[in-house]
């Protein structure tokens, strides 16, 4: 499939990387020669110029492209690029839009279709959604919902003195959930029953939503109610997060820290009922003054990685139980974990996963990207899928992937060896990068 990526920024690079690895023909367009040079190391074609200009698009052979993704820094350019591409008959045009005037704040999303934009990606809104999910699932490093919210996948790091340490998975006898993967020393493993859990392992668990008490008790991370939250940074992610948490309705108290007086003022006007503090939260006295002890969670979304890292360290130093940090550069993510962040949100990964869902030609319902290339996928089992009707222990399932849940007629089944996938079931699969090709082939509509 030919995919044209307009904009060779961070998201453009990540997209080009993932798509080329999945054997798509990728053309990257950017005005900036330097960013193109960096991207040229990948197996992609590059075109220098304005991605919204028909001339440049023709150079990239836009008429043969199935997907155009516009991820330049400027919303308006992304929109015009999509409109232009649509006139060349490109079936799917995706634009990244940041300005809320064009997106979520505007309920008449229909007009976007008329502009030729099939999918809008709002990285800040996606990040805020993820943060809101993480807040609702305390102490998890990753959370994602599948099957309309009935199935949840969470990542939990094992405490040093947790009960589970030294036990094998078979001994845990989990009900309602299944450990689908373990991350140890930044490497993902698909565990077998004899796998022995060590301290600081990160377990990825798929299970019925709201039924994680057993595993939480085992890893030493019981769910606690989050009542008071500090949000650091009143940028778009920060403001979207506050809006999504709707503090008044949910009876949550939010304190929003913002260094810049103008931004702080704007936030105070937007959310007059939360406490907006104009001050630098990466300074210890500012956090202390506001009574850091009372916060159940802190969300560092200042937009600058180093500030977020520093804020995370200070927050942990001050004893805040849960810290969620936003990081722009994926390679800093392990640093954030080392600094004590319980969860790391990478807006760019969210952008990429939205595009991948469209580009892959199979019955993917949703997709959740993890750091290091692992993914959790939700498929519809189409007729003719070779896994249908065969007990799992006898099925030829990829070894680098694990089935986490089956949804059969609205019923969630935590699979065992004798479980069977039937036609029309939805399945939730955890997969390492090596298994993704095989999985998409297995679940391809025949």
């Amino acid at each position: 499939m030919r995919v044209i990526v307009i904009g060779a920024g961070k998201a453009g690079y990540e997209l080009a990387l993932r798509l080329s690895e999945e054997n798509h023909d990728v053309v990257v367009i950017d005005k900036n020669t330097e960013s193109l040079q960096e991207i040229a190391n990948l197996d992609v074609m590059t075109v220098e110029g304005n991605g919204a200009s028909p001339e440049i698009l023709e150079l990239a052979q836009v008429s043969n492209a199935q997907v155009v993704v516009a991820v330049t820094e400027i919303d308006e350019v992304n929109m015009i690029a999509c409109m232009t591409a649509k006139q060349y008959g490109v079936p799917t045009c995706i634009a990244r839009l940041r300005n809320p005037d064009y997106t979520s704040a505007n309920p008449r999303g229909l007009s976007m279709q008329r502009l030729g934009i099939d999918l809008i990606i709002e990285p800040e809104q996606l990040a805020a959604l993820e943060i809101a999910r993480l807040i609702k699932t305390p102490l998890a490093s990753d959370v994602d919902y599948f099957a309309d919210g009935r199935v949840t996948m969470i990542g939990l790091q094992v405490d040093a003195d947790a009960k589970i340490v030294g036990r094998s998975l078979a001994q845990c006898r989990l009900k309602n959930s299944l450990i689908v993967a373990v991350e140890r020393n930044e490497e993902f493993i698909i565990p077998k029953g004899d796998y022995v859990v060590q301290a600081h392992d990160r377990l990825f668990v798929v299970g019925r939503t709201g039924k994680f008490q057993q595993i939480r008790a085992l890893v030493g991370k019981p769910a606690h109610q989050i009542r008071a939250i500090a949000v650091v940074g009143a940028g778009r992610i920060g403001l979207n997060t506050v809006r999504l948490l709707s503090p008044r309705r949910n009876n949550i108290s939010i304190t929003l820290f913002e260094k810049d007086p103008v931004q702080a003022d704007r936030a105070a006007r937007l959310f007059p009922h939360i406490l907006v503090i104009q001050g630098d939260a990466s300074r210890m006295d500012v956090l202390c003054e506001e009574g850091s002890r009372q916060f159940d969670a802190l969300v560092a979304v200042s937009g600058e990685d180093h500030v977020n890292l520093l804020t995370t360290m200070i927050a942990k130093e001050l004893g805040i139980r849960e810290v969620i940090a936003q990081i722009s550069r994926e390679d800093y993510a392990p640093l954030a974990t080392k600094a004590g962040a319980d969860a790391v949100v990478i807006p760019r990964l969210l952008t990429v996963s939205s595009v991948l869902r469209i580009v892959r030609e199979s019955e993917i319902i949703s997709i959740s990207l993890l750091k290091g290339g692992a993914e959790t996928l939700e498929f519809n089992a189409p007729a003719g899928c070779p896994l249908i009707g065969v007990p799992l222990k006898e099925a030829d399932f990829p070894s680098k992937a694990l089935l986490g849940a089956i949804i059969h007629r609205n019923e969630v089944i935590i699979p065992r060896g004798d479980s069977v996938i039937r036609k029309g079931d939805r399945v939730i699969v955890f997969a390492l990068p090596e298994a993704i090709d095989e999985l998409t082939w297995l679940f391809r509509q025949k």
Partner: protein
Amino acid sequence: MNIRTIAHVLGILLLFLSVTMLLPALIALLYQEPGAPPFYTAALLSALLGLILRHYGESAFFSHREAFAVVTFSWLSVAVLGGLPFYLGGSLPTIIDSTFEAMSGITTMGGTVYSAVEGIPHAYLFWRSFLNWIGGMGFIVLAIAVLPKLHVSSRLFQAEVPGPVNDRIQPRIKQTASVLWVIYAVMTLLLILLLRVGGMSAFDAINHALSAMGTGGFSTRNLSLESFQSPYVETVITIFMFLAGINFSLYFAYLRGRSWRTFRQSTEFKTYLGIIAAATLLITFNIWGSFAQSWWQALRLSGFQTVAIMTTTGFSTANYDLWPAFSRAILFILIFIGGCAGSTSGGMKVVRIVLCCKYIYRELIRQIHPRAVRYVTLDGRVVDEKVIHSVLGFMLIYVVVFIIGTLMLTVFNLDLVSAASSAAAALSNVGPGFGSVGPHGNYSFLPGAAKALLSLMMLIGRLEIYSVLTLFLPQLWRQRTQPRADL
């Protein structure tokens, strides 16, 4: 300050006043009383003065400064010229008395210098109630609604209509004024009918309806509504006083949307309701057993009095001056609060009290969180700091004017309760106060200077202070280079 522009607009308003004065003359003819000629004289004088001013004046640049002057002077002229018939007809001894009476009428205060109103000619009684009614929604707002075109309308409207922020309910000021007056007139008609059904004479019904809707408080009886001894009349009047104390733009919103949403969402309305309910209950328990035998009678007395004072109408159904100190203290506080902004009532207005309380809360939060950025909100919307400051300034000046007024009244050997309550009653346009100016008393015994002072305080209170007080600033009167019309 452009004096010739002021003269021009003032001239038009005086001509308008002279026409309205023909209405009581008509009443005099109807009852075949000799009361008509004084009204003719006053109307003629007003018309003459209006024509002279128009001749001298010119229609030119008009700013908020000119608006202050026009509003204040036109209200002053209404008081002086409108009071003239009382003096010319020999019903009141001095011009100060007659001006006090007319000022008390137009500012909807409703305190009187007549020691007995029963027996004075129908035309006078009607004119007093009619002044209440005109003053309630605003003399100038009426002129804007009725007159073909006043090019300076919007500035005048802002200066006359009470409240910290005036919300326009229609794009054009003339439409806004007309809508307000139509709602007002329809409600008044309804009240007249209901009172008539309750057995009041047509004349009494009209008079009480006019003064109740204007939240004025002039009555045709010495004992005010106490003399009717009718639970039905009291209930009806209570309800309509309450309605008149609500922001009229809420009615408009209801008529447009046919939904009570605006009422439910209005913090001011809910607070107004809450204060009335709380005060009524407290007074009910306070007077139950001592001044009222049954709980029903206590509720009836306290409900009526609370609404009458809170909406700054000033009717009475009992001599509340005899009530326990706690009840009187509550009524005294209600005098200051007054009704809603954009209603016909006086006082500081509930919305200002609400904003002030929210401001205090915000300042307390700031003490705990020195770095907090926080705005005061009203009905979910952020209130500009400028508005907050003007509200606080208003309340401060209000209190200062009250204190100075009280002090000056004690000079005339008035006891402290009477002095303080008459100052408050004048400033908030309530009418009766406590002590010698209580519900069974009146203002006739005061010396002329005290009456003049109270008249000025009524005007200051009705025009919400700034319009009147800025006229005392020399800067306002300085001639200013005018922008040329052809630029």
